[in-house]
């Protein structure tokens, strides 16, 4: 017998009646967007709360990296390429978008490989690709670097700001937190495999479900999580079968591993997280844009006192933060919760008078 979306909602309601407050963190920005797109919270019982985690790679890109991007892109000799999401993320009063308005050649690409065509039609320019994203997108950047190496193209380089998910989740949730379970990112897991998320029950002692992105898939994963909480089981259930396998996409993982290696990385508003970034291995270091361009020495520090990590853990609310609404607002955001239009601080700010 086939279960409908309504069946899932009814089962969730039935379980929720017997439970107290439950907070489920979705760590993936695309989950956040899908949850909003399908209006999922409006069909959930009041005691089941979804909170957005640090899973939007655009929002967590450090101000220092954005500053480097702005400094590289602000040159007549450069064609700067990036995903559309990155265009409006501000650093101070500037963004890639404002640089483009001022006449710099900044192009939105839908694949890193677009940089190769651009480099060939513009041999007199240096093309820079801004590599952002988690495990899902890192293989693409590795493939680009591998290809420019093979083809011996000397006018492309990469500003590498890739990050990895498990380290960040562990860092954020290893201590006391008010999150009861995790909705794990289906497309990161398509690359890493479901085993990469077994640390959630094992190390963090939380139940988890890997989910797809349709309304049915998200609700099925929520139901699975509630069932685990109810029966006191702590596992990572793969609710995105057919897309996510145990060991993931080995070819993609091999490519990341050949071209990049782990390093510490700074997350906007969260600070430095050990082993959560990816840098080029020595063999490919020549493609690192930071080695090709002179970047002004004055490093941008992450602002002090940002409460994003506490807010993500559920320990704080936005108004606890001294910066909220003053030195941190949607036009000049400090941490990811204010950068993302789905972030808690952004929503609080937007609806503060309502």
């Amino acid at each position, binding site marked *: 017998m086939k279960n409908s979306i*309504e069946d899932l909602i009814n089962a969730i309601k039935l379980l929720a009646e017997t439970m107290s407050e439950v907070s489920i963190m979705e760590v993936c920005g695309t989950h956040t967007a899908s949850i909003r797109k399908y209006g999922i919270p409006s069909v959930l019982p009041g005691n089941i709360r979804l909170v957005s985690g640090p899973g939007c790679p655009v929002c967590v890109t450090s101000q220092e990296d954005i500053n480097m991007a702005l400094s590289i892109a602000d040159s007549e000799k450069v064609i700067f390429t990036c995903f559309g999401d990155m265009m409006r993320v501000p650093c101070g009063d500037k963004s890639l978008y404002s640089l483009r308005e001022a006449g710099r050649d900044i192009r939105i690409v839908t694949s890193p490989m677009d940089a190769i065509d651009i480099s060939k039609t513009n041999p007199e320019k240096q093309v820079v690709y801004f590599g952002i994203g988690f495990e899902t997108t890192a293989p693409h950047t590795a493939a680009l670097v591998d290809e420019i190496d093979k083809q011996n193209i000397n006018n492309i380089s990469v500003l590498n700001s890739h990050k990895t998910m498990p380290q960040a989740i562990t860092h954020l949730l290893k201590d006391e937190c008010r999150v009861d379970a995790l909705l794990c990112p289906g497309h990161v897991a398509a690359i890493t495999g479901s085993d990469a998320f077994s640390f959630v029950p094992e190390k963090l002692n939380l139940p988890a479900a890997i989910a797809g992105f349709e309304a049915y898939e998200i609700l099925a994963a929520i139901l699975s999580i509630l069932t685990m909480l109810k029966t006191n089981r702590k596992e990572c259930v793969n609710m995105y079968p057919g897309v996510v396998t145990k060991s993931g996409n080995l070819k993609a993982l091999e490519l990341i591993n050949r071209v990049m290696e782990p390093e510490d990385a700074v997350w906007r508003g969260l600070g430095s997280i050990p082993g959560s970034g990816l840098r080029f291995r020595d063999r490919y270091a020549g493609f690192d844009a930071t080695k090709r361009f002179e970047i002004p020495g004055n490093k941008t520090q992450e602002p002090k006192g940002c409460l994003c990590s506490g807010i993500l853990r559920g320990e704080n609310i936005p108004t606890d933060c001294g910066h909220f609404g003053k030195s941190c607002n949607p036009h000049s955001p400090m941490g990811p919760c204010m950068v993302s239009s789905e972030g808690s601080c952004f929503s609080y700010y937007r609806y503060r008078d309502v």
Partner: protein
Amino acid sequence: MESKITLAHGSGGEKYRELVQEIFLPAYSNEYLSPLTDSAILEGGGKIAMTTDSYVVRPLFFPGGDIGSLAVSGTVNDLAVSGALPKYISVGMILEAGLEMDVLKRIVDSISNTAEKAGVKVVTGDTKVVESKSADEIFINTAGVGIFPSGRIIPTQKIEAGDRIIISGCMASHGMAVMNARNNLGFSPPIESDAAPLGKLVDAIFMNENNIIHAMRDPTRGGVAATLCEWVTSTTDIIIYQGSVPVRPDVAAACRLLGLDPLHIANEGIILFSVPEKCADSVLAALRKEEYGKDSAIIGEVREGRGTVSAVTDFGSKIRITMPNGELLPRIC
């Protein structure tokens, strides 16, 4: 004639005359324009509607349209949604020196063809040429005049609780067509714009005297969402039935791929109507008989409320619809 526009073409001298005689007049030819007087003398009488709009588009030509067809449709549609019958338009052009004469000819032909389809006459015009890099190939301004046929009730442009919301065709086609062409996104077959003059579509509704329209608007920049958000008042809510708003399959797929909401994407060939429930079916029937109204659909309703616009899904969830924020950019997150 030269193959490119030069500053001399805007000087008012011999070259300018050549441009008018060889390019503009043959294309636009009509009894109001041909005397080449300083002003066109027109028949009006009673109330008239007037509007103006400027067009800067890149690329100049895109699947389904070009800056010329857009400059006519856009202005004609602004007249049509105010309830007027579009009659006359002016065409002002600012040309960048160096523009290919063939490009200008193609645009002028497109203006002429679209004007004919729309039932309007180009009655006056002006052309200036600026130095290279002072403009981006060509900028066009059109102004339009429309008349109100006797007995026509001019819409108040205020929605009322109990109204039904009707759309006259598939949404998001224009915005996606231009985005695909501008950014070389590589969708194939290329996505076609819906750009079309809609004067006759609106006129078809008024053919039935019992049809009443409370509000109508062409949802251009900002898409259907922006129009609905502008319409809603502090005492009403607008509810859209999710999935009932028609979108062409190719446009829907392109939106999914780029992470864009079709409700936020620009249109140039559709109109949104808010009509009393009692005439919703008859307005719909009138629209569906027209060339540009075949895909018309009832997509939602107005209720008493507190100023929110939302969509309801078939499994009962509710989604807030908000104004889009700035230029829409493809996303991967």
